[in-house]
């Protein structure tokens, strides 16, 4: 793999991180008020004097010009320093590190389930010969995308926890607590993968090389599961970043419904209390995950499909 190809991808990744930081900074600072004013808005805070609030703003540096605040925070973030939560005063890195394992559990299992079910459905739908069954199977992914996770999660809880008592409704303990949230999280991603793969399978199955394989006497299963899948999987791999991004975004709703700690709940709470350092830490972290996955896909892609590396080399 040419070094320049790798270098370009890395520079692009850094640019995305910087852009995520900057855009989140601009949006958060354009919101009315600031984290300190949230304190004054609480029931008990109505009697806090403006002087006391200003003293706190000064301590947090919120009274400095915006550009100075931006540059200071950018410099801190480059050094891996995200500051402390305005609400609970914990270091942002600690909060993210504490929340990460819980989200990684459900996102990891969710990804596994999404790939298994998504791929399984796509392959089954494109393999079956009965038109009506194929249509029925192909109509499942749009349904999966359309079902709100919130509603689906509550439904799972209602049946498997409240009625049947098979899984705990609340909390982070044990493997049992991971199952329902992971299934909830997997649904939209599985649907996306299934839709994409099914479409790419039907395109691939019309390619001339499939005809060649068939002419050489390969059976239907061999053509379907060996020849076609390999090529058809490439477009599906491209959306890996998107799928993982969806899992992170879905954790906000899923972790709320299942009362779990994690990055999603942390995000919801930080946004609700306008806890700027925490929100920014999470945005940059999410961007980092996104960028790393895309980088990995970009770097793996040429290995799977030699045409890409060749083309890239020819251009540069």
């Amino acid at each position, binding site marked *: 793999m040419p070094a320049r190809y790798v270098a370009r991808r890395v520079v692009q990744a850094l640019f995305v991180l910087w852009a995520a930081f900057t855009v989140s900074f601009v949006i958060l600072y354009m919101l009315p008020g600031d984290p300190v004013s949230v304190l004054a808005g609480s029931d008990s805070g*109505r009697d*806090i004097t403006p002087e006391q609030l200003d003293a706190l703003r000064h301590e947090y540096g919120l009274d400095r010009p915006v550009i100075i605040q931006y540059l200071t925070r950018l410099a801190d973030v480059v050094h891996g320093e995200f500051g402390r939560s305005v*609400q609970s005063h914990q270091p942002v890195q600690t909060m993210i590190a504490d929340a990460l394992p819980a989200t990684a559990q459900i996102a990891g299992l969710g990804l596994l389930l999404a790939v298994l079910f998504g791929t399984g459905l796509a392959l089954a739908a494109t393999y079956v010969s009965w038109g009506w069954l194929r249509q029925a199977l192909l109509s499942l992914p749009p349904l999966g995308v359309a079902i709100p996770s919130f509603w689906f999660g*509550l439904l799972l809880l209602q049946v498997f926890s409240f009625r049947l008592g098979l899984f705990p*409704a609340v909390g982070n303990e044990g493997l049992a607590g991971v199952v329902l949230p992971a299934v909830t999280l997997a649904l939209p991603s599985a649907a996306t993968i299934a839709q994409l793969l099914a479409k790419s399978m039907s395109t691939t199955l019309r390619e001339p090389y499939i005809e060649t394989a068939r002419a050489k006497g390969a059976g239907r299963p061999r053509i379907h599961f060996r020849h076609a899948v390999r090529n058809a999987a490439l477009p599906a791999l491209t959306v890996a970043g998107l799928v993982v991004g969806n899992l992170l975004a879905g954790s906000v709703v899923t972790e709320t419904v299942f*009362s779990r700690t994690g990055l999603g709940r942390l995000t919801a709470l930080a946004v609700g209390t306008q806890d700027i350092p925490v929100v920014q830490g999470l945005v940059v972290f999410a961007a980092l995950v996104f960028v790393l996955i895309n980088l990995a896909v970009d770097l793996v892609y040429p290995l799977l499909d030699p045409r890409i590396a060749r083309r890239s080399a020819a251009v540069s």
Partner: protein
Amino acid sequence: MKSSYRPGRRGRGRVLAAWLAAVPLALAACGQAGTAETSAAGNAPRAGGTLTFGLSTDPISINPRGAGAGNDALYVSRQLVDSLTEQDPATGKLIPWLATKWEASDDARTFTFTLRDGVTFSDGSPLTAQSVKDNFDDIVRAGAKAPSSIIYFTGYKATEVVDKLTVKIEFTTPNAAFLQASSTAALGLLGPSTLARPVEERDVANVVGTGPFTLDHYTKNSEVVLKRRKGYGWAPADREHQGDAYLDSVVFKVIPEAGVRTGALQSGQIAAIGSVPPQNVQVLRSSGYTLVVRPNPGNVFSLTANESRPLLKDVRVRQALAKAINAQEVRDTVLTPDFAVATSILARTTPDWTDLSGALTFDVEAAKKLLDEAGWTPGADGVREKDGEKLSLVTTWLSNFGPNQSALELIQQQLSKIGVKLELQTYTVPELLQVYAKGTFDLAWGNLSRADGDVLRTNYSTAGNNYYRIDDAGLEDALRGQQSTADGAERAGHIQRAQKLIVEKAHSIPVFELTTILALSSKTHGITLGADSRLQQLNDAWVS
């Protein structure tokens, strides 16, 4: 508190019947506010076991000084700290706790507390006058970083250690409400091992008090686990059980979804839940769960006029709005019978509350007449006009209480019948504060909880944040008067006068009382709400 009445719009006869039924209901609730509906079935309390309690939000901070998440944070931190005094929920009066007696100077600037001997913090150090001084000095030093506590220290001069168990707190300006403040968790006393740490390190750990429970651990967005403190022996007299708490441990689980909280309770996964939404109350009650119900003291949910805007400067217009709002219908339609229609600007659980329900009658014809007199004539589209201007009022609200939106939409309909248009606008907290600062609103919907009449000064005094720009010298005089006297009867007189002025001049239009509702499984006993209608210390709680 059981009533066969079901909410819903069923015509005038039904509404009248409900209104009549509500009067004894309200009176009964006054007598036994905060007690559970069913008693502990005659069983003797059992020591041991774990109570699992479902909270609606993450506490954020379990430091009683911090803003945290409000109620849910206080449910937890109350278990860790004791206060100088206890406000008895049955009477609203202060009774001894960590202080055996106290005294206020006539000018309400100096407060002397005598401490109970033999009290220790869970880090082993003794409670002395010096501990009180260290705590209060620490609050003032922390300033806005102790948002729940600093508000009681306006005009703080110093705390003086008179002797080992006597402490004197001095203010440069009168602060009569400080006595009630001394009963709050926000002024609960923290041990030296906590005070030795920076404020920033007291939110998720290191909170040490003299309370009946100690902190085991807090996992953000998940749970707070408390363990029983051994050797606890200074519960106030309003607790049935003295000495060590019955429960070995208490687990507060954070369960943000109301439906999941209810489901987890019904499926036996947790023993008690807070923030029961009104729509779940009837089903829980009818299926045998114990409901613990208590109206929140302080300013009821009300619509407050911005009197710097020309439309609501005229007292007749404000009074017309008050007469045209059918609070009974609001209660019956969007809430449950557990919520009471407001009888004053203060809830009936607030000390010095006075019953002004006679001045809060619903009368559409009188409302129309007042608007006619004020020169507002019906326009072509049904909205009244005067000098080419429409009687259309920008009304702000926060989504901090589930039924707010439905309540306001109903009030909007009610007011449209007299030709007044409400433009409902919802905001986030920082947005709303900016709107308040700029004064670009006509009416503000909201409430403010505190178990003391001083809450009216916070909300309506022109000396405070002055959100509503009320110009009423008589009211301001009453609000400052109550702050400046330590004489209980005189203070009550001022607070009652303030309530009358606010209601009669319709500076604010009371609608209903915010009410705290907990639900307990049949195996959970002895859980009550304190004078602030937040979870009481769990000394009496036990599980069977």
